[in-house]
């Protein structure tokens, strides 16, 4: 974990209420896909936890959805702004368990961490596939970016306006996978849990105080005792989850 200043390189809308920003800074503490950063914003007391979408050298890519005043403010950030960011938070996904054909399932704001994960898995010589779920076609993002990694992509929209009509779970049946990784809203995670045929890893979201394990604000119960989503998670193994 490191607290350091990043400089905003870009901040662009890429889909409905969805922004992609790139930042330059010290990314050395980001060691696994599925980790997150915690961003200090002027005028807000608590930081904003955002999952890491990509890291290349000293460039950090984040994708966030405007859901409240903090992310609304972020959407107005300008190139050149300096942001204090705690980086390298959370455990992240363990790519070692994936087998040859892992399935990656991202829903909405849960899509971004799947990108760095897919990249890492490809780098390890594995053959991941990805299902991206959105409510509507105008929310869809990163389809081409995943394709550019050489990863087969299925898009599912709840209203059927793009890709397969329905939920990510409707698209899961057609895959033969060795393992799975998922991130998205909790009802989706629950549905994936029920549908999945292998072991896998889930990334959870919770309102956080500190983001690094000090306040116990985001605790949950697991089969192996209490865990803090921010520090012992956000990624939990399927077999330890208590819904």
């Amino acid at each position, binding site marked *: 974990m490191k607290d350091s200043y990043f400089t905003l390189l870009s901040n662009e809308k890429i889909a409905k209420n969805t922004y992609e920003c790139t930042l330059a800074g010290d990314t050395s503490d980001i060691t696994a896909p599925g980790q997150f950063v915690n961003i200090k914003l002027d005028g807000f007391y*608590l930081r904003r936890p955002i999952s890491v979408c990509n890291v290349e050298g000293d460039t950090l890519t984040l994708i966030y959805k405007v859901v409240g005043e903090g992310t609304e403010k972020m959407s107005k950030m300008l190139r050149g702004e300096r942001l204090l960011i705690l980086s390298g938070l959370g455990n992240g996904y363990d790519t070692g368990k994936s087998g040859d054909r892992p399935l990656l399932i991202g829903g909405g704001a849960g899509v971004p961490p799947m990108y760095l994960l897919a990249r890492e898995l490809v780098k390890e010589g594995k053959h991941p596939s990805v299902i991206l779920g959105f409510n509507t076609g105008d929310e869809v993002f990163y389809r081409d970016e995943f394709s550019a990694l050489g990863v087969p992509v299925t898009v599912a929209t709840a209203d059927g306006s793009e890709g397969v009509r329905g939920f990510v779970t409707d698209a899961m049946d057609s895959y033969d996978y060795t393992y799975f990784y998922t991130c998205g809203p909790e009802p989706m995670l629950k549905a994936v849990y029920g549908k999945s045929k292998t072991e896998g890893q889930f990334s959870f979201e919770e309102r956080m105080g500190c983001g690094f*394990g000090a306040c116990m604000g985001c605790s*949950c119960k697991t089969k192996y005792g209490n865990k803090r989503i921010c520090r012992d998670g956000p990624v939990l193994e399927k077999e330890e989850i208590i819904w």
Partner: protein
Amino acid sequence: MVNTKVTLCGITLDNPVIPASGTYGFGYEFAELYDINILGTLSFKGTTLEPRFGNPTPRIAECPSGMLNAVGLQNPGVDKVISEELPKLRAVFSKPAMANVSGFSLDEYVETVRRLDTAEGIGWFEVNISCPNVHGGGMSFGTSPEMAETVTRAVRDVTKKPIIIKLSPNVTDIVSIAKACEAGGADGVSLINTLMGMRIDLKRRRPILANKTGGYSGPAIKPVAVRMIYQVYDAVKIPIVGMGGVATAEDVIELMLAGATAVEVGAENLVNPYACRDIIEDLARAMEKYGIENLTDIIGGAH
């Protein structure tokens, strides 16, 4: 050279800065960030007799200049604190620590203090009779002078170590409660715990916190803390550990001028994990700026 040393209930601290209970765990995770031996001491996570998961989530809500929390005293219980957490703390912290304890009955307070009394490295007890986030305990012991005095006397009987009673601001008259603690044999009082508050999610039209209410902390509550420390200082002879919205070295000086002998830093640890280190490193500068040679000289200096 300025002197930052203060003496709290007979134990001298290198400086008055103490991370507040519930914002610093058992210290060892912060020791990965900096050498926590620079602290005056630390007040570790509120410990109860039995393990507690605490409240359902969401437990956190943001506010202007602060936050609400309704964690609800999550902790592994006194026996595991002694067998697992304190050894990890001792490995990275060589000074006496402040043991923060809570209970849901008189017997629980007494038994938790009794078990911790023989543990290595405890300098003081901070007895929390002011947690707003648990039902049927916590704050209910701290809202009447009679109960506060009863708890104080009960724990007084089982330890010779200094007892500091942590007081709630959610009362009509904090002074009467501080005096009751003094009468009951407390060696000090600490104040203020969080202010009870609530926030509502406009989309869901429901309280944000699963517990509905939570404790407000952060810079917003500092003026309330300063006022209460000032009032209590006038009324009791025992030392005060001040806290409430402390984020800077200037805040430390302000609470000491109001009457605090030492100062706890709470919510700020959560937004700046280096907050206590930054404040300690900045103390000498702030003291020189305000012409302070010995920090201990300014305690109650605003009276």
